């Protein structure tokens, strides 16, 4: 149980996370659980009743979903309400959130068939519509290719094939298993907040753990054609395990913001793109470079990007690049306490990976990084997978 006190917010935010190791066999069925839980509880048996209740609570909001965090799959449940100061009458948000997670509507020792069928259909549609959002799709595809055969390569909603095997009975069995075995983390964030205690008895109390899975370099170059007017180029890099604060600075110099090498060289100098940047997936030792370019500029863009990575290896980093990269990271870290959701996400990640570093200490670890640290690290960064989603050569649809 975690309490994060904040002042100045108009709201309180409560969260419950159920965490299990990613697993190809169970990823689909797990992703269905939040979708079915939000359909009805013992006390509020359908969405109409749930939503009426939330609105009566002066616009409380309940959100849930699934996420991949490194090699874990996390089922997330959030309840946000106005803090007591702004409420004409006190509301029981914690009880309601607990009900939604732990007291679902059960009929004959299974979930309600109608809800399960409908939510299966919904997830099926999400999977089928993956290609609708080209930017997200291209990143997902690069992850799949780069982590082929590894846990992290699994798509978070799983597959239609596995979806078809699920019914109201086996889903309920899986739910009971998750409630019994998953790691459970609860967070309360705000003023005058309540604790969330877990209302179920569990067989064992030790927390699930998974080791970081070894990654083998793929050296892939994948091109996929689709009806797009702008090509989406994604490049996956592997970064060394070790000082993550140094990798954060490396990433910020390479593609974190407008002063980064990628933005300056791909966009500003070569005018090839509107967006060009990179993001660091700390828990997977991976950096993804993302940019949107014309199909015919593929070779040019790849060359410029490779050159930036080479430059960093050779120590070609200006003081300006280095300093503004650090500033950018600090500025982002300083903003974490300004969002209850970010605060919870930060401390959850720290707990899940047993680091328990306070935000202050984390900021200090970034401050300590030197340019030489970054140059030393740059030598061990390896290019892994290039993925390009493109239209036809002439650039037109």
């Amino acid at each position: 149980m975690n309490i994060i006190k904040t002042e100045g917010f108009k709201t309180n935010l409560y969260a419950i996370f159920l965490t299990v190791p990613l697993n190809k066999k169970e990823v689909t069925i797990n992703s269905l659980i939040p979708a079915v839980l939000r359909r009805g509880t013992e006390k509020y048996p359908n969405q109409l009743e749930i939503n009426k209740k939330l609105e009566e609570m002066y616009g409380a909001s309940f959100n849930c979903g699934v996420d991949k965090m490194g090699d874990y799959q996390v089922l997330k449940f959030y309840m946000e309400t106005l803090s007591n100061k702004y409420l004409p009458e006190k509301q029981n948000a914690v009880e309601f959130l607990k009900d939604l997670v732990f007291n679902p509507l059960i009929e004959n020792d299974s979930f309600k068939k109608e809800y399960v069928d409908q939510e299966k259909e919904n997830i099926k549609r999400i999977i089928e519509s993956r290609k609708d959002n080209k930017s997200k799709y291209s990143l997902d595809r690069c992850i799949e290719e780069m982590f082929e055969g590894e846990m992290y390569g699994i798509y978070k909603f799983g597959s239609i094939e596995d979806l078809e095997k699920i019914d109201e009975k086996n889903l309920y069995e899986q739910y009971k298993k998750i409630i019994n075995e998953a790691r459970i983390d609860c967070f309360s964030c705000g003023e005058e907040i309540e604790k969330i205690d877990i209302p179920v008895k569990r067989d064992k109390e030790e927390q699930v753990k998974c080791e970081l899975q070894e990654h083998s370099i793929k050296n892939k170059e994948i091109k996929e054609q689709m009806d797009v007017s702008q090509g989406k180029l994604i490049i996956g890099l592997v970064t060394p395990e070790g000082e993550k604060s140094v990798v954060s600075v490396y990433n910020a110099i390479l593609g974190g913001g407008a002063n980064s090498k990628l933005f300056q060289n791909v966009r500003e100098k070569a005018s090839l793109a509107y967006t060009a940047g990179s993001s660091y997936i700390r828990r997977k030792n991976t950096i993804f470079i993302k940019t949107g370019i014309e199909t015919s500029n593929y070779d040019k863009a790849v060359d410029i990007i490779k050159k930036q990575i080479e430059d960093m290896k050779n120590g070609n980093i200006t003081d300006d690049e280095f300093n503004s990269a650090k500033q950018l990271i600090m500025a982002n870290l300083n903003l974490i306490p300004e969002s209850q959701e970010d605060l919870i996400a930060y401390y959850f990640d720290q707990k899940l990976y047993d680091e328990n570093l306070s935000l202050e200490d984390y900021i200090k670890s970034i401050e300590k990084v030197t340019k030489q640290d970054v140059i030393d690290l740059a030598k061990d960064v390896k290019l892994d997978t290039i993925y390009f989603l493109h239209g036809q050569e002439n650039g037109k649809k």
Partner: protein
Amino acid sequence: MEIIKNNKINETEYIETLENGMKIIVIPKKNTKKKYVIWSTKFGSIDNNFIDPTTNTEVKVPDGVAHYLEHKMFENENGVDSLYKMMALGLDANAYTTNDHTAYLFGCTDNFYEGLDELMDFVQHPYFTDENVEKERGIIGQEIGRYDDEPSWELYVNAMDCLYKNNPIKLDIAGTVESISKITKEILYSCYNTFYHPSNMVMCISGDFEPEKIIEEVKKRLIPREKMAEIKRIYPEEPKGINKKEKEANMGINMPLFMIGYKDELQEDKVKEDLAVQIIFNSLLGKSSKVYQELYNEGLLQTSLDSSYEYSKTYAHALIGGESPNPKKVYEKIKETIKNEEISKEDFERSKKKIYGDLVSEYNDVENIGRMYLSDAIKDVNSMEYIDKIDDISLEYVNEILRKLFKENESIISIVK
């Protein structure tokens, strides 16, 4: 200085209109390290035809010029780009253009005054050359290309095309590759001199500030400008009624998107009307409505409808957006509901509670506050009015708006497949 205090949400707003006509709004906020400032000119994509107040002649500019100007404002004579300079200070700096305004902004925890120096310096010092204007064409061309792949953008533009015959809100904010090819540094300077005059600008600031002190800091950084007469904007005459009933685009997406629209030609208090529309949508089509549950259970909707009411000085409309495997069927059901239903007392009271909660939550974050006050101020609305008016609104008024805006009005639908 005008001071407006609201005890319900425990916030106070300070408004100062300077001698040069510029308006500054400050919403101080204790217990936060984050500071936010947004400075805007009332110059958007719809302002493509106007009378230059200094020469009194009519000017027509290519579509997309406000947005092009936004890109070029960051350029400086010494070659330093102000956006990068601000980012190097650790500021979260950005700019954007809408149909009725262009805004420059940043949020930060440290280096606020260094950031204010830079922001107020570059916005007051345009530097355009033939070369730097030319260089931007490729980048903006890619930005336009990005929108072309964005189904939700296509959906919105087509909805506007259905609602309006002439109003330039139906145009792409960034223009087209063709229209931006005509933009020159002379056009940019001329638009700058007209629209970036303090009398046409608003600044909103939120964070842990003393209002008098921060207003002084802003005044110190303002460069004196000659007084300027009001800019007369020329908008094409918009006929009554909709332009066309529907528009469908094929973009090869799996889950079709739709947007239903109602053009609003009522002369109401827009804040009150906005709240009434929100109550109507929440009661009839929101997550707690019977209709939404039916559509959901039939698999026609998967996520809640995204309803909104948009207005400015030249347009107003209500929109209902969503995704569905069968948009036409959803459309029929929504039309039928709107035609036959009235808002009940119970739904009305519950919706009011929800909207109150949503309004209060807006005050969680200084960035949200700044953006909200700014975009309302552009429309000559004070955001604080919403919190006050939600209490006063009556069920009778809501049902009257339901009748006049929805029941007696023709609707449109835009679909992207």
